């Protein structure tokens, strides 16, 4: 299991709130650090991928478990 430097809880939130949380979270990290985002909005799968692409951060892992979506994102 990957140890994240920051965990962002976006459960129960719908677009655009998880992206807003992720943006604020990643801004607080240094390059190379990892942020874990936990969300429940199914749309977050597509949105987080787009977020990584548009912000130059790397999606290390995306998984789904019991209606929760987990994303590990490394700051670029």
């Amino acid at each position: 299991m990957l140890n994240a430097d920051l965990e962002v809880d976006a459960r129960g939130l719908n677009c655009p709130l998880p992206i807003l949380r992720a943006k604020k979270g990643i801004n607080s990290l240094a390059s190379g650090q990892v942020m874990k985002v936990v969300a429940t909005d199914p749309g977050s799968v597509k949105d987080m991928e787009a977020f990584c692409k548009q912000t130059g951060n790397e999606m290390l892992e995306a998984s789904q478990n019991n209606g929760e979506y987990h994303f590990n994102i490394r700051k670029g």
Partner: protein
Amino acid sequence: MAKRLKASERRATILAVAKVLFSDKGYHGVSVDEIATRLGVSPAILYRHFASKEELYEAVLNEIACKRESYVGVVVDSDGSFDDVLRRITRIYVDSVSRDPDYLRMELHSALEGSDATRQFFENRWKPFTDYIEFSLGEMSTRRDIAPVEPRVAALAFQGMIREALYAKCIYRSSRYVDMPLPELCDLLVDLFLQSIGYGVTARADTTNPAGQAR
């Protein structure tokens, strides 16, 4: 002539024609025969692509859903403050919907037709606004960045304002607002909304918390 269309082209043509008819007359106002007649084909050909009128209607809605506007880019470009994000997502939504007035007409028809699933579909498209406003105002109220406000009612008021602006400009084509382009009208409504919840007042007065940023 029409018989030479490929299956994918035929499907796209059916969806385009059906969308115009559904937007004119609503789901119940259109028959499969009428759609087939408009396409210049027999109902049998139409049924080869869609098993029922309901399936065809769902396909039209699905096509709209696939074109769902993405708010990721505007959120990334925003400064993260409540007003900036709200303004940007409103512009994206208004721009997207105003280019497709048939969608607005379908939304109006669905309000009267009593199908919960369809009504839910259209309401879901508003959810980014209502959820964002409700959640953010709740947080800001708690932090006393703004005066106490009922977040759900504020979200409903905002949805009502923007929806009415879209109807006035794209459906009624009201001469009353002819001098105001839709994006400008919506920007003014966003300003009015922010003023009405006292957003700028408290946030600007408090220099230690620039722009009343939501966490």
